């Protein structure tokens, strides 16, 4: 709305381009529409979270009253404490954290190294190996799930953290992501380092890796989201609620007939909280990163 002052500048300098881009905003009316639609839509998007918070602080009777209780008579903070009696929350949280941390670290190490080699090193069979790795991206996870289960079972890893973590240490997507990142970097830096007598590992570690930081953070973000939220694999390899991560733990809690809704709300809020807080803190980086990678 303040852009009325910047009328079409004749030159095509960078600021002028900005001015041109901003011109349609002159009509204040379009902003009102945008705020109404985005604000209204945003409220709808946020409503389930708000409702979840309200329900988590209500009594079970209030949750189940036919005319909704929009605000509990008394805030029931006790519901949050009750979570720990109702499910092995801490051990599930522990599993979720380790599962995520280990996968993120392993993928960063393995995918940056392989991605770098596929992008910049020469060795026989490179094209074929790359092709095979990338072809996995097209296969839905059900196709390898049964067999992964067999492997984990044969190793005696059912109901263990290592069993839940193992297949996710390796990522074809991450390799693809990192290869693209390294492909787009200038060759000159490597050349200079090579002339200085650096070996391939030093070049990778000291020069290329720091440059790849933006893509590494995209990899870390996607892996974190997926590891924290994923349900099917952890559900398949863990049968005891103590060894499950939170995603599976919450899902199996649902079966009970006489459910204590407020406690479930509190539990699911606490389960989501770490990732949601991380997202809100790093929002710009997360959104821009995902938008640029354009992939989940």
């Amino acid at each position: 709305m303040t852009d009325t002052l910047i009328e079409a500048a004749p030159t095509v300098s960078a600021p002028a381009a900005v001015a041109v881009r901003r011109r349609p905003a002159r009509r204040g009316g379009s902003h009102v529409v945008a705020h109404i639609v985005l604000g209204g839509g945003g409220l709808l998007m946020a409503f389930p979270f708000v409702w979840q918070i309200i329900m988590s602080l209500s009594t079970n009777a209030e949750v189940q009253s036919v005319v909704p209780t929009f605000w509990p008579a008394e805030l029931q903070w006790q519901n949050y404490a009750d979570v720990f009696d109702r499910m092995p929350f801490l051990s599930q949280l522990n599993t979720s954290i380790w599962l995520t941390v280990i996968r993120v670290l392993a993928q960063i190490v393995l995918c940056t190294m392989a991605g770098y080699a596929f992008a910049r090193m020469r060795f026989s069979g490179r094209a074929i190996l790359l092709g095979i790795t990338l072809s996995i991206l097209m296969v839905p996870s059900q196709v390898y799930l049964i067999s992964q289960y067999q492997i984990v079972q044969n190793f005696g890893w059912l109901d263990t953290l290592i069993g839940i973590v193992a297949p996710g240490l390796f990522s074809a997507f991450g390799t693809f992501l990192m290869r693209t990142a390294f492909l787009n970097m200038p060759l000159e830096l490597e050349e200079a380092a090579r002339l200085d007598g650096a070996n391939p590992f030093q070049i990778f570690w000291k020069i290329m890796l720091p440059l790849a930081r933006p893509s590494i953070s995209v990899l870390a973000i996607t892996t974190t989201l997926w590891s924290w939220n994923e349900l099917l694999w952890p559900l398949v390899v863990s049968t005891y609620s103590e060894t499950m991560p939170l995603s599976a733990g919450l899902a199996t809690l649902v079966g009970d007939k006489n459910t204590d809704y407020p406690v479930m709300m509190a539990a699911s809020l606490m389960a989501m909280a770490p990732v949601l807080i991380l997202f809100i803190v790093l929002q710009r980086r997360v959104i821009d990163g995902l938008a640029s990678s354009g992939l989940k």
Partner: protein
Amino acid sequence: MTTGSTIRPARAKAPRLNPGRAAARRDGFWPWLFVLPLLGGIGLFYLWPIIQTFYFSFTEWGVFGGNTFTGLDNYVRLFADSQLYSALGNTLLYTAIVLTGIPIAVYLASLLNTPGLRFASFYRVLFFLPYVAMPTAVAMVWRIIFNGDFGILNYVLSLVGIDGPYWTSTPGFAMLAVAIVGLWSSLGFSMIILAAGLKNIPPELYEAAELDGATPWRRFTSVTVPLLTPSIFFVLIITTISSFQLFDLLYALLGSSNPVLPKSMSLVYFFYSQGFVSNDKGYAAAIAMVIFLIIGVVTVLQFRFQKRWVNND
């Protein structure tokens, strides 16, 4: 790894090589040090399992382990199984509903890109929040919202004189409920991708359109949408593939013991229930291969069809 014959010349395919160096340098053992840890894992946990599942799909599993080769039996049984078609129908219905989010996302993204819009990043966060939230955790609150007796959705419906159904326990409505949540959680992702695509449209085009007296709506349909088609296509592919993978939301929203499940299964749920609840792993392997095939066909069709509407210049 054993395929490499050392005499093969390095291909000119390697990106941005200095011409003089093309065939010269090799990196000795270093590349293997870099790729083998990953390739070992990929081979063990992905490649081998894919081959094995393909084999499993032709076998029947005994109760005490061990499997016997039964040829095409699983596939014959599968194609005669009405559950396959019901699961496929449900998955298609779910996908169709979630895809209606794309036009909405195009419109919302164009609003979000309004130059100089205040609170734009706040709106971005609001719309993106459902995408990062754990599906099983948000499904919990949606169960309450959809509850037939005390859910706020039916309460709101009753205010306008509609007697809401038992969403999560009525066939048909159950899938609709899952799809609404799916739409809610995927909208933000589509919006962000599309908003990034919008940034690449040269502002001069809007300028020109405006000089020609195009209304904002006309500018939207004649400039924004045609130039955005590559991003729209990308979102379409990603959303379709991930919708075909529906499992988490369904499992968490309907619950594993819900009597409505046999009629509201998705393909992946069908796979899961056969392979890991009924423990019929040979049959489940056949289901997995069919899911693979269906997704492949749908994706190929989309790529074929894109030439008609995607602007790739």
